[in-house]
């Protein structure tokens, strides 16, 4: 696959399909692409199998096997997913997702995945928003288990070559294909060029634009930002899932950022504000096993901003009303109880503080059922896409969706690659490369200026403050000017250390650019949607408006800016209930 093109001073690889992003969606995309073509590249910004957000998925992967309850089926899963997404989902995509999710889990098992079993069958439990128990799991380490299984399978697939610690910093799309992706190696800051007939983007979301978040540091929206720049349409960028109950105080190293949520999901915890009031009971009777993440986040965040939160900006989650023996038994799973005891937290005796954090992007590239964007030969899967989860994702639907959308996009990208030929564009590529090289040199040689990590911090505070859980038109507009200032500062005044090897500031500099772009797209869409729905709550438009807003907002690059239009949701499978 390796070769040298033209006069470019970089290692070059000639591929059928390049997959960008080595989480679960990317790994399964590469596996499926390799069934069709022989030259598949998989690029990962960190260490493959250990980076991105898939390994952080703690517990549930939902699929309607109907094992725990034979009445469950994909249609019921579709109905729950559409209700949870407040009917903003692409119904054709949800239909495929819910039908194929069980097959993908069986595929994982055929690769050696281990799930918790009962009587020789997959053990399935309830998750809020689902009407049947359909969450498969493995201990509290379902995500690492899935990622490990897929990574081992990729390594055994000779058609797939993995490139680790390489960040893609530019895409050059040519109308007739092939496309080019320009990468930067973290180990030595050198360029690496990929030429591929089809490119698949599976880089996840960008929850790192928020101060409070649950994601890995890698989750900076790189792929969504690169696809947008390359002309791909994005959808639903206003919908960011805020996880209602994440770790606040004490910190629980080793249990994961959403560890506290387990108390709610497993035994139905009580939530108290700082005044000791059990506020959810008043707001939503019966909320414990029913409230979806959007409803709960909004309710909790209201307590905080109305001054009834803890000093750490959280509320208390409590299960001390349950008998201690029951607690110890229920929380044997994954040694949860014991691990907390080791940190000095006895959940049978005291409540835990919990807070709201950005968790997941429902929006991303607008794709069809094959994972194709509007740009020929550019595909996407997993969290980098829009459509599967609508205005709010149900718990347990992420890990199964990435398997379905990832496998499909890998397969169809490879089929595309087989049908399209060669057409080289190295001159254009050389220009882009030189301009990037100059930019990096300027960052390196500047004496003073904005450090990328400072810029990132500014974005995180700005977005949390102005476009977080509770939004309002005026407030969001007031974020546009500071964002513009930061953009100019980043364009003209960025400074990084000169180190050639493992230069974290160099990665951060590119990530900052993506975070600024993603933030501005989130603001554009969130300002446009003048209603409240799912994870998008606007104080100035507090109710859903089905007459006007049963529609997706599509964003597209227009000159140096962005244009948007709405597109009515096609209710092909189910109508919203009254």
């Amino acid at each position, binding site marked *: 696959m390796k070769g040298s093109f033209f006069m470019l001073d970089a290692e070059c690889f000639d591929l059928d399909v390049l997959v960008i992003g080595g989480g679960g969606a990317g790994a399964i995309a590469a596996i499926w692409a390799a069934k069709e073509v022989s030259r598949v590249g998989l690029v990962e910004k*960190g*260490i493959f199998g*250990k*980076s*991105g957000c898939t*390994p*952080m998925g703690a517990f549930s992967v939902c699929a309607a096997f109907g094992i725990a309850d034979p009445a469950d089926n994909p249609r019921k899963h579709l109905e729950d997913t559409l209700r949870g997404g407040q009917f903003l989902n692409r119904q054709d995509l949800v239909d495929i997702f819910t039908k194929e999710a069980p097959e993908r889990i069986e595929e994982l098992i055929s690769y050696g995945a281990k799930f918790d079993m009962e009587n020789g069958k997959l053990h399935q439990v309830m998750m809020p928003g689902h009407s049947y128990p359909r969450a498969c799991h493995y*201990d509290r*380490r379902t*995500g*690492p*288990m899935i*990622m*490990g299984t897929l990574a081992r399978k990729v390594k055994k697939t000779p058609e797939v070559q993995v490139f680790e610690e390489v960040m893609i910093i530019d895409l050059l799309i040519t109308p007739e294909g092939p496309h080019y992706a320009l990468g930067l190696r973290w*180990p030595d800051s050198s360029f690496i060029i990929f030429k591929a007939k089809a490119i698949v983007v599976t880089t996840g979301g960008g929850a790192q634009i928020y101060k409070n978040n*649950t994601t*890995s*540091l*890698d989750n900076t929206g790189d792929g969504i930002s690169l696809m947008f720049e390359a002309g791909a349409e994005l959808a639903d960028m206003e919908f960011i899932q805020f996880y209602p109950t994440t770790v606040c*105080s*004490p*910190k*629980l*190293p*080793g*249990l*994961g*950022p959403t560890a506290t949520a387990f108390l709610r999901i497993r035994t139905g915890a009580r939530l108290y504000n700082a005044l000791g009031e059990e506020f959810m009971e008043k707001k939503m009777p019966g909320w414990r096993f029913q409230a979806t993440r959007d409803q709960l986040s909004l309710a909790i965040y209201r307590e905080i901003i109305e001054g009834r939160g803890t000093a750490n900006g959280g509320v208390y989650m409590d299960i001390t009303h349950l008998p201690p023996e029951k607690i110890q038994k229920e929380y044997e799973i*994954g*040694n949860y109880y014991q691990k907390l005891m080791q940190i000095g937290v006895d959940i049978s005796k005291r409540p835990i503080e919990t807070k709201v954090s950005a968790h997941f992007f429902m929006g991303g590239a607008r794709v069809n059922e094959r994972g194709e964007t509007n740009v020929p030969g550019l595909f996407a899967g997993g969290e980098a896409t829009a459509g599967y989860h609508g205005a709010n994702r149900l718990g347990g639907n992420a890990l199964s969706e990435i398997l379905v959308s990832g496998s499909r996009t890998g397969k169809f990208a490879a089929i595309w690659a087989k049908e399209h030929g060669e057409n080289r564009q190295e001159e254009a590529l050389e220009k882009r490369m030189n301009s990037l090289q100059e930019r990096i040199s300027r960052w390196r040689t500047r004496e003073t200026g904005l*450090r990328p*990590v400072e810029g990132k*911090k500014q974005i995180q505070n700005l977005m949390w403050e102005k476009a977080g859980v509770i939004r309002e038109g005026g407030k969001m507009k007031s974020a546009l000017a500071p964002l513009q200032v930061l953009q100019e500062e980043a364009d003209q005044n960025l400074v*990084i*250390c000169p*180190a*050639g*090897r*493992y*230069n*974290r*500031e160099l990665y951060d500099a590119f990530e900052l650019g993506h975070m600024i772009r993603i933030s501005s797209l989130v603001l554009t869409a969130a300002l446009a949607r003048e209603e409240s729905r799912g994870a998008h709550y606007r104080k100035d438009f507090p109710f859903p408006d089905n007459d006007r807003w049963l529609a997706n907002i599509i964003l597209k690059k227009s000159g140096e800016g962005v244009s948007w239009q709405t597109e009515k949701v096609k209710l092909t499978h189910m109508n919203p209930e009254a």
Partner: protein
Amino acid sequence: MPEMSRIQVLRFDPDQGSSPYYQEYIIPFEKESTILDSLYYIYQHLDGSLAFRGSCFAGGWCNVCAVKVSGRALLPCKHFMEKDMIIEPLPGYPVLRDLIVDYSRKLKNEPGENRASGNLCQPEKRQ
């Protein structure tokens, strides 16, 4: 005056041609911060050139951040910071720069080192 923590980090950059050396950083002590948070604090506030790995920052989910802290190989995201720490690269692997090692080339029988267990960089085994 807040409580402070003294952290010595073993640094090495083959491009600089010098031998490895310890660099001392003084940072605020926060009892609820992990050792990985301390490294990030140094990177964020004191020294942008410090090289280390870390993805999940959540306590043993990605397992890429392994280092040696005051003689013990561990995942710095799973342990709270201390007031006096010596942080060195994970033993048993070639050092590429500062705290970054080449996981793909395990050194054989490196003498006199507190070797990390082979599972340290694998997802945790089920208990």
